[in-house]
């Protein structure tokens, strides 16, 4: 009867391959060499694509986009645990995962160049596209998980959100729905310690995002987000749990956004270079590369070959995409009307005709709107 403590679930922290490349052998997950190489390849592919897009953006050949460099580990080491008929509900820094799931590089390039076509998941890929309104996708993931339960299959959903996203009401509702309905969802939080300029300490007053799992009666764990093995292991446990019908889990992956928020952000305004430099040293890629090398799974020579192959792959994709950017099929603005509903209402048909007529009388050349120069009003984030 007197004052007593309520027992709380345990929240864990996990690191396996630490920032100095030291391995905790006991905790090391067993991943076959093919798998290890595959993970590394997609992380590298994502990294190089991101870098190429940055160059293109600077040259006016790509729109503003949120860089994913530094987040490949979280995306790749988690998504690697699911199957083709499972579901992937990303936010917008899961480039590695999208590529691994089967999105062509061209789609990525199309998307960040302002074409809806780039948001269409390829046939047979159970992914939702990039989601811009923060945290809203988490409810879609929860809903897919609820539907999986209705179907009585053992599929799972892997979904992603940022530290900033955790402040949105939708994040709370998604975690709550998933837990109440025991939906097979793994909630992956990319805690990169910034939401544009707002640091973690202004975003929340609790120590970890993982501990929010206590509010939903689900397991919560914080892992080193630059440690492929730790992310993999935590996600693996969560996926298995979800498949067993035990419901959702929350995995907080602690990392740092070493890049600007997007190509138009200037982080110098709100944080010091030193802070960033410190974290650059913790990058997952060299750490993982060293591990693979030491393990004999991917010696340096092989890795350099991979670099070359990836370079070629990206070049080819860019070429292909840039042809598409100019194609009539993709540029014809009249298509903007064609996908609103399965059927077109007479009033919408009239509006379409109105625009067709406009282009006819005006003879406007809409074939290359890409060339329009950037207006000086573009946002800085």
């Amino acid at each position: 009867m007197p004052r007593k403590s309520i027992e709380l679930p345990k929240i864990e922290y996990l690191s396996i391959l630490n920032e100095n490349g030291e391995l905790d052998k006991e905790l090391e997950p067993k991943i076959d060499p093919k798998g290890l190489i595959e993970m590394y390849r997609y992380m590298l592919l994502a990294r190089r694509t991101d870098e190429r897009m940055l160059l293109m953006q600077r040259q006016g050949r790509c729109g503003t986009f949120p860089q994913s460099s530094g987040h490949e580990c979280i995306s790749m080491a988690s998504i690697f645990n699911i199957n083709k008929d499972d579901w992937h509900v990303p936010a917008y820094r899961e480039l590695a995962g999208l590529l691994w799931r089967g999105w062509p590089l061209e789609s990525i390039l199309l998307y960040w160049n302002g074409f809806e076509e780039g948001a269409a998941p390829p046939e047979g890929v159970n992914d939702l596209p990039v989601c811009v309104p923060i945290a809203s996708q988490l409810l879609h993931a929860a809903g897919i998980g609820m539907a999986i339960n209705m179907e009585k299959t053992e599929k799972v959903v892997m979904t992603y959100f940022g530290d900033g996203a955790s402040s949105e009401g939708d994040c709370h509702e998604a975690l709550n729905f998933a837990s109440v309905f025991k939906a097979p969802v793994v909630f992956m939080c990319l805690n990169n310690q910034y939401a544009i300029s707002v640091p973690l300490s202004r975003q929340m007053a609790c120590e970890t995002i993982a501990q929010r799992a206590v509010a939903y009666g689900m397991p919560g764990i914080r892992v080193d987000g630059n440690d492929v093995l730790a992310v993999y292991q935590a996600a693996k446990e969560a996926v298995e749990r979800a498949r067993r019908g035990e419901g959702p889990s929350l995995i907080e992956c602690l990392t740092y956004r070493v890049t600007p928020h997007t190509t138009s952000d200037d982080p110098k305004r709100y944080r010091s270079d030193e802070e960033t430099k410190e974290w650059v040293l913790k990058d997952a890629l060299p750490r993982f590369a060293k591990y693979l090398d030491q393990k004999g799974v991917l010696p340096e020579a092989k890795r350099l070959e991979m670099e070359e192959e990836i370079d070629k792959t990206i070049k080819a994709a860019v070429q292909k995409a840039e042809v598409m950017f100019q194609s009539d099929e993709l540029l014809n603005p009249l298509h903007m009307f064609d996908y609103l509903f399965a059927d077109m209402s007479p009033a919408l048909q009239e509006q379409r005709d109105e625009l067709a007529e406009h282009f006819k009388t005006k003879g406007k050349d809409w074939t290359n709107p890409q060339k329009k120069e950037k207006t000086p009003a573009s946002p800085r984030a």
Partner: protein
Amino acid sequence: MAEMNMAKAINLALFEAMTRDDKVIVMGEDVGPDEGVFRITEGLFAKFGGDRVIDTPLAESGIIGTAIGMAIFGMRPVCEIQFSGFDYYNYHQLESHAARFRNRTRGRLTVPMVMRAPYGGGIRALEHHSESREAIYAHTPGLKVVIPSGPRNARALLHAAIQDPDPVIYYEPKACYRLFREDVPETMETLPIGKAQIVKQGTDITLISYGASMRATLEAAETLEEDDGVKAEIVDLLSICPLDTETIVNSVRKTGRAVVVHEGPRTCGLAAEVIARINEKVLMFLEAPVVRVTGFDIPIPYFSKEQAYLPDAEKVLKAARETLSF
């Protein structure tokens, strides 16, 4: 044929839809054992069980957001938002996602779902329980909006909404739930979304309305005929979006006069859109300005004064006479 009220007709449609398609599920606050605060989901939980008739946590964005995920997955969720005054909580999910997935994925992902909500005043309800903001949805590209006015079209429209491959807002005029009964055929029927109905032919003036306001409109038309010898043509929009321009303008071309009646606030409401389309298509046939009989540009007052806010037969009559004597 069976006689029933609108509440029962909607319930029947849900029952039928769940019976013929096991992808149809019902979800919302208190839709399960409680059978909905208006008893619209009566018998569903007993018949189809908790897997398909789902009581959710109290979170509207959660309801619509998870339904979007389910719909993409392949289910046909029919969500109940307890009162339309609370669907603002989930508007961002509808605008940013339900309305857009097909478009932004070029048809690859679609969201066949229905959001049902009782709307409108007249039942002496609490604050925030009498709103009528269908215009917001009509102004949201990617959503269809239908509003029945009687038991028979309620059932048929709900079937159409559930079968539609895209998201549909289905607003239920709660004041009509148990106001009157109508014959509803044995066999399931649907009504095409996007089509209005001429519920009474006439030659002198066109009265355009939908939902709960149809009652006032019909009553006014009767008086017009009896007392003034005026033959009003009555258009029941049924579909708020897409709006059936053709039926509206054909009628106005014939009559040259129109009154538009709805409960929602006036500014940027549905009547404004109807007038804009009349202006675009048949301006030169107009013998008088089209008159709006609508809710005022204030929140619907709390129930001691709501009757004065709502369109009633007298207001419609007055507007019609004004139009006729212009």
